[in-house]
């Protein structure tokens, strides 16, 4: 079994006192969809920012596809693409300029990018808006553009932070299908979400983080062992106990 993403005793401390993430150990396997759950302020976004190299971990090691994100950032970053929770991108450019920029960064050929751009943007129904500046897009359209861009390079790991916020039901369904397709082609998906129903139906494994600590990790059945009820009940119970 290939481990694509590994977090080894990762810790993040702000201002020498606030522990945002505390001794986090996590392994994400190739080909799985992993859901990362937790209440607001639990440390989900901080963890994702450390994984993607936006933030440096105070302690611990993060390896992506065998590459340390701090020691070998380029190789590590070639293995994943990322969609943040807030689609903050430079938005005075046109949608197509953004997609071409991303494609060039991951060195995607013209032919392949044309095929991918057409496919994803048509699936998300933003193809006709590609010539329009991004600042006239709605929140959901920006989110779809970022997701399309992140899928163009066919990354080994597709990392998304709260990807369903702002998406309409049809687009949410399209995204879920894309996640499945990505895994079927051998890719891996790591995403955080508040929508327990989505996580429950979509993920192979889930991890629950609270106050910076991983309090549960595994398949739903493994976590649910000796407990009854839905994921919602389980989530509330676990996060309350902490």
């Amino acid at each position, binding site marked *: 079994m290939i481990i694509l993403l590994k977090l080894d005793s990762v810790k993040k401390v702000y201002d020498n006192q606030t522990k945002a993430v505390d001794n986090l150990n996590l392994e994400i396997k190739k080909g799985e969809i992993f859901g990362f759950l937790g209440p607001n302020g639990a440390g989900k976004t901080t963890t994702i*920012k450390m994984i*993607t*190299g*936006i*933030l*440096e971990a105070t302690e611990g090691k993060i390896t992506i596809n065998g590459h340390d994100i701090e020691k070998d*950032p*380029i*190789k590590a*970053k*070639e293995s994943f*693409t*990322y969609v*943040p929770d*807030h689609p*903050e*991108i*430079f*938005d*005075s*450019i*046109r949608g*197509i*300029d953004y997609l*071409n*920029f991303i*494609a*060039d*960064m*991951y*060195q*995607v*050929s*013209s*032919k392949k*990018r*044309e095929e991918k*751009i057409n496919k994803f943007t048509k699936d998300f129904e933003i193809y*006709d*808006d*590609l*010539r*329009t*500046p991004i600042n*006239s*897009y709605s929140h959901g359209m920006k989110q779809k553009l970022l997701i399309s861009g992140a899928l163009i390079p066919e990354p080994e790991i597709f990392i998304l932070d709260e990807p369903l916020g702002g998406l309409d039901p049809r687009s949410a369904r399209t995204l879920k299908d894309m996640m499945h397709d990505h895994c079927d082609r051998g890719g891996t998906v790591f995403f955080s979400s508040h929508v327990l129903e989505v996580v429950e139906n979509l993920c192979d494994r889930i991890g629950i983080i609270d106050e910076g600590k991983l309090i549960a990790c595994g398949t739903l059945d493994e976590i649910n062992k000796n407990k009854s009820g839905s994921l919602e009940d389980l989530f509330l119970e676990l996060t309350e106990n902490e």
Partner: protein
Amino acid sequence: MNRFYSLIKIQLKDFLGKTVSSLNIKYKSFAKLLILLLPIAISLPVFNLSLTTFITFAQLGQPELVITLTYIGAVMLMFFLGIPFIVSIFFYSRDIQFLSALPLKEEEIVFSKLSTVYFYLLLIATIVMGPALYVFGMNTTVSIFYIIKALAVLLLVPLLPMLIAAVIVMLMSSFLINSSHRNLFSLLSNFILIGAVIALQVIVNRYTTDPEKIRSLVESGEGLLSILGMRFPPSIWMTRMFVGSLTDTILFLGLNLILIYSLFKLSKLFYRKAILSLQQGGRASGEIDYKNESRNYQLIKRHFLIIFKEPTFLMNTLFTLILPLFLFVVMSFTGEISREILNSPQLTPYHSLIFIIIIIAPVIVSNIGSTIITREGKSFWQTKVLPISDKENIKARIQATVLLTFVGSALMGFFALYLLELSFKAILIGSVFGIAVILFFSVIDLIINIYRPFLNWNNPTAAVKNNLNVMIALGLRAVTAGIIYGIYKLTDDYMLNNINTVILIATAVFFGAYLGARYFLYNKLVDRFRKIYV
């Protein structure tokens, strides 16, 4: 509290908060102190000018003209600075949608937004007119009544230019603007400002260099005030109001009231036809291009697009790069510099030096590099997750800065070639020196930005104009110039007598300094750059 006053209060608080945070100073109390001290520092030379003007007019028996003159100056300044400010708060503010959903009248929203313009202009009025009122009062009769009158005048002064500017913007935007013209409209209003500044410079120059005009003005005696106010009657009304005329007080206040009423009537139309129409987007058409480019090309292009697609950044860049060219063109029109003078035998030996001064002018006034990280704002995360090294990321920023500054210098170079009969040797020496200076300051400016990234801004103006990085960058240029001047003084006339040798040495020094700064940047600051995050 009344809804309207509450709205004004929140707008002013927001404006002050943004001004304080835009200074990017860790200690807020220090930032507030700086905001208080800065106008005082700026008003010191104005105070000097007011005193000189007062003495001149006092000798002519009409000391009150110091108030008339400064009033005209203040009104023009406020009018031309007011237009882009009004455009920015109405067409680029992010709270319009939020305000639209509140139970407020259209005119309440428009007037509450104008309160920030009033506050901004009041600051300008205090800086420009305050010293004149002080000088006039201290040298004539100062009393409690005078102080009250002076304060009332200061409070009234911003109204007229603000109202005229607002009415113009409202009329223009109500009929011309739609969402695709917004950037064009903003650019146009800024170019009006630049054009006005240059026109003013030309008029002032022509006036001051024409002794006949000054003599006729002085000889007109009693009618001096009328001549000064002929083109702008409110200046006469205001001056006479100041010295106690009831009729002129009524005229001045009446004009302000009429403009307030017009603004009130126009605000509904303006709000519906201009402001709200901008909230609606359109769909563009055209070909989609899938051409692939190199990473470095895309990174540089990204920096260019960030500048060119955001009007505030574009104006700021054009302004700093092309302003020297504008000034030189104006100076050549007004005759301050001419081909005859510059190519005279006395100046020919210094052609290399003059050429250098002309071509490095854009480097001296530009500050592109000191805000190249800041400009990205909250989208800065994007390049951090891409598979590029921090060095590549930094290198593209330097290259973008160098290219833009080089274009500015090249334009100046063509102008210099028109003005000066330069030898090939002078062009070569000057160009190499120019390149060394561009490289050095591009790296230095980026170092400043790495130390002070300031990414959490909401208004692009805060990113490039009210940013202390710009002041630091300009300060470093002033220090460098000071050092060169100091060396010149210490070496007597050696520098002027051996100009080409000195330029070659200076080129070597700048190249050396560039290499040193570059080494420091790539070896010591990469880690700091990596740790920058929004």
